[in-house]
């Protein structure tokens, strides 16, 4: 056990930053922004230190901390990171400063809209982002199921306020397809604001209710896990290392039925969060209505907790149930891949389009996880990083585009590359990353997932490969409609990227290229962790069929 609580500090720093930012007086908005940015950069430094202190291939959980917390519930404050957690903490810490920079003016106060002197949304916006970061980091770090659950649930609240409280600036209008569904309860009819605020709060509530329902179902499963451990070990525990160890030495045996039910409770919550078809419907609303940086926070950071938790909790705690459920989950993820891609092609709203592409990509990640091969899982873990970076790059540029025009509708754009070449160029790079162009990060991971899936489930692998074609369609059609062609009305005077925006986009694109050319530093961290997980689920890679080759050489 390390004497210095590095992991606690990494999670606590953004939390402290959130409080400090929120405490900045109303008039000192710029100070608040810089303060928040400084805290997020300091967190990045700590994440870097974690990465250097961590020895890939060493003990499974490193930098561990363990303290008694709520003894009556068997809950311990237990932290520890494996390679996947290190990488994802790094991803979170890298993305948050960019999210802040991109959203630098998203929460500025319009003088006309000031109900009172103490109204300080700017401070709130940046404080909430830091709070989300703190909770995500501690969720990645915790090795106690209960501790994880607490932050898995608690992070919904700041996210909810980020989605519901801060919409697009300049009255950007998106697709109004939800407005008809939004039937208000009687008490609220009296307070109908403008339609956009309504849609936004609809999206925020939908986000919260979906995730809360998933979380509460998981709560029942968490209680079930406690009862099982209490019956078998004599004392209830939530500690992942303790449970794994007890199982390894044969002191604990969950009955198949109980394991399946508890697994389903956990998986349901993670599938809502990830999101997996058919539990995905909150994501397009949430991403559509939130500002682009917040949408990036949702899809690139927060949702990763769901896929990460599948790897860490579903597979490790319930190996037999995972194997039992894998066929169904694989089919669902395949549906996600294809369905997300098809719906993305049909979108008229840029941000909703991005949301559907994310659903498709999360399908790939879950496919890789449950294919139960080392390539598949390494690919899935790497995909989490690549999806985070590529979506961030793409969506943040799209956000700059949207805020310039004040509209999210694809038809409102056209010929942007003639007016704002830098913007169009960076958007193109982001787009190509999304469609997995070789040389950019996502290609490596998508390839690994496909290979890993194919080696065990050839049919699924083949079907999933078609999604690459669909990805090319939605990405290139979007680029063609918005960037090429004659310059549309309202686009003529569009400004190109400013310095702040270039600072956001430049490093992300560099990172994409780096990950595409040389992913080894990341996979070094991921592979040992993936190997451990695979041995938990008693799976090894299918043996390559060398008979055919042998016959060839015999001829």
């Amino acid at each position, binding site marked *: 056990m390390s004497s210095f609580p590095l992991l606690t500090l990494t999670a606590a720093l953004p939390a402290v930053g959130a409080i400090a930012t929120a405490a900045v007086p109303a008039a000192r908005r710029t100070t608040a922004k810089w303060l928040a940015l400084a805290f997020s950069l300091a967190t990045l430094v700590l994440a870097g230190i974690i990465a250097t202190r961590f020895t890939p291939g060493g003990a499974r959980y490193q930098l561990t901390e363990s303290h008694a917390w709520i003894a*009556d519930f068997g809950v311990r404050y237990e932290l520890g990171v494996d390679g996947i957690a290190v990488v994802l903490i790094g991803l979170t810490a890298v993305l948050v400063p960019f999210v802040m920079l991109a959203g630098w003016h998203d929460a500025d106060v319009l003088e006309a809209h000031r109900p009172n002197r103490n109204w300080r949304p700017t401070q709130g916006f940046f404080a909430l982002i830091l709070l989300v970061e703190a909770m995500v980091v501690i969720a990645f770090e915790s090795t106690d199921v209960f501790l994880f659950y607490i932050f898995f*649930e608690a992070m919904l609240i700041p996210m909810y306020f980020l989605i519901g409280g801060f919409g697009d600036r300049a009255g950007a209008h998106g697709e109004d397809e939800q407005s008809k569904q939004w039937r208000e309860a009687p008490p609220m009819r009296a307070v109908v604001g403008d339609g956009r605020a309504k849609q936004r*709060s609809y999206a925020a509530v939908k986000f919260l209710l979906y995730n809360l329902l998933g979380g509460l179902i998981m709560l029942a499963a968490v209680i079930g896990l406690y009862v099982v451990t209490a019956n078998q070990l004599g004392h209830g525990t939530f500690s992942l290392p303790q449970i794994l160890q007890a199982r390894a030495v044969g002191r604990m045996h969950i009955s198949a039925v109980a394991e399946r039910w508890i697994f389903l409770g956990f998986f349901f919550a993670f599938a809502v969060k990830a999101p997996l078809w058919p539990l995905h419907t909150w994501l397009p609303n949430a991403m559509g209505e939130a500002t682009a940086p917040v949408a990036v926070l949702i899809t690139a950071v927060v949702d990763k907790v769901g896929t990460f938790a599948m790897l860490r909790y579903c597979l490790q705690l319930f190996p037999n149930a995972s194997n039992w459920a894998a066929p169904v989950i694989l089919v669902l993820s395949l549906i996600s891949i294809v369905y997300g891609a098809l719906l993305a092609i049909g979108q008229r709203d840029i941000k909703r389009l991005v949301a559907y592409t994310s659903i498709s990509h999360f399908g790939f990640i879950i496919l890789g996880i449950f294919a139960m091969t080392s390539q598949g899982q390494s690919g899935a873990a790497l995909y989490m990083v690549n999806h985070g970076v590529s979506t961030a790059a793409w969506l943040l540029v799209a956000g700059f585009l949207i805020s310039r025009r004040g509209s999210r509708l694809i038809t409102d754009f056209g010929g942007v590359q003639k007016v704002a070449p830098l913007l169009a160029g960076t958007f193109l790079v982001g787009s190509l990353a999304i469609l997995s162009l070789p040389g950019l990060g996502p290609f490596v991971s998508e390839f690994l997932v496909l290979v890993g899936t194919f080696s065990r489930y050839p049919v699924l692998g083949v079907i999933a490969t078609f999604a690459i074609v669909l990805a090319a369609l939605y990405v290139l059609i979007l680029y063609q409609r918005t960037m090429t062609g004659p310059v549309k009305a309202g686009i003529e005077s569009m400004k190109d990227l400013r310095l702040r925006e270039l600072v956001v986009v430049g490093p992300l694109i560099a990172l994409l290229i780096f990950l595409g050319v040389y992913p080894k530093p990341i996979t070094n961290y991921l592979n040992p962790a993936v190997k451990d997980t695979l041995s938990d689920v008693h799976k090894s890679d299918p043996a390559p069929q060398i008979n055919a080759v042998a016959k060839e050489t015999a001829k």
Partner: protein
Amino acid sequence: MTTATAVSIHSLWTTLADSTPGAATTSTAFQTPKVEYAQLSPILIVFGAAILGVLAEAFLPRRSRYTAQLAISVIGLAAAFAAVVALAADGYASTKSHIAAMGAVAVDGPALFLQGTILLVALVAAFTFAERRLDPAAHGNRVDSFAAQGSAVPGSEQEKAAVKAGFTTTEIFPLLLFAVGGMLVFPAANDLLTLFVSLEVFSLPLYLLCALSRRHRLMSQESAVKYFLLGAFSSAILLFGVALLYGYAGTVSYGGIADVVGGTAKLTPALANSTATDALLLIGGAMVVIGLLFKVAAVPFHMWTPDVYQGAPTPVTGFMAAATKVAAFGALLRLLYVVLPGLRWDWRPVMWAVAILTMVIGAIIAVTQTDVKRLLAYSSIAHAGFILAGVVAVSPDGVSSVLFYLGAYSFVTLGAFAVVTLVRDAGGEATHLSRWAGLGRRSPLVAAVFAVYLLAFAGIPLTSGFAGKFAVFKAAAEGGALPLVIIGVISSAIAAFFYIRVIVLMFFSEPQPGAPSVAIPSLLTSSAIAVGVAVTLVLGVAPQYFLDLAGKASVFVR
């Protein structure tokens, strides 16, 4: 005494012929009752303070009554709480727990824990009762939430005169103390008659308090009449049940009935005759339980809750919602765990059904509410269902989880109702939900505090609501009630919807023109709200100490 003339005093049917030499029967000679005054001190202090309050009301000049009454209440409640702590520290909660006052009152862990909770709740409630900054001054006099003169007909000349003269109803403080005294006895009552008497002692002052609202007096009086009629009805049912149980067991003491039910009592011919059939026991037990379920507002005995909560003055509602629930659940626990454990297989399925109905119906009906107070009323019904899930567990864990939940819940409730008193317009408190739109824009702090309470109600992690909910669900799951837990989490999800809706309304809706303003409270209400928030967060983040406390206090004495 083993003389031939000895008769047992606890049974009417015991005759000369039955009493065999050697049976531990007592003498016919009159014995002075032995009362352990020190162990009953919390109860005695509160009743003493209440009587002092009545005297003060009678003899002090009107202008000095408010200060005197507030001082008497606060000092009395604090002293009683100190007495509870001293008793607990002395070991009466664990090793020395026993039955005091000739078998009438139990002094044990659950009783002391619940008495401590009730006293703290009452202390905080006394602050909200005494608040005089919120209502605009009437004719230059600071006034509270209570009617100027309870006896004045609403809208009459007499009422106008009373308001003009600046009268205030300082009787509320002795009434509060009497109610608290009754509540202290209720969960500690160890025989059915004490149970009934204490029920009446705390109910009657509450009926009166409900009728004393300064604003909306007719609604307030209507709520009091409803509460009184239904309360009287349920008391009658409870009393009938007491009679039937006495008919069955020949005794009203908890331990005695439990012995008869468990078959360990000495079987006299009379007892053999009355226990030949279980009908008396089952019907009597059911009727007593119904009387208690009425007080905890469990479905289907919940009908009074929304009307009474809405009509009563809000400080009273907060006190009632918190303290009555604590006292009534205490009494219910003792009845089910001490008197009727032998009937566990009979009452568990029924309580299952009641718990499920209460959780689901409370949560679903709450979704349609448009008034904050009614919303909180239905939410309190849903919470009663969650607590019942812990009651059903039938284990020490179940008891301790219920104790913990009650402590956590009562402070959230008290705080939430205290916030409701702050949001006002010209007509008094603006309780309609639509009036709360955009509150977060105008008064971020008040809205944020209320949001914390709502999140605690919804059971979001890091609040006391989550720790409590986890504790009861864990106990229920360990007791084999997993379906109950699953229904519980689903109704939590439904319940979360309407809590979240209020948050949406406060933070994401545009303020309406002419929206209510937030009154700046005095230190009294502010401290009540602050205590609520502090307890909510502390019990959410570091509940271990209090879980320990509840765990140690979870053994009933018999």
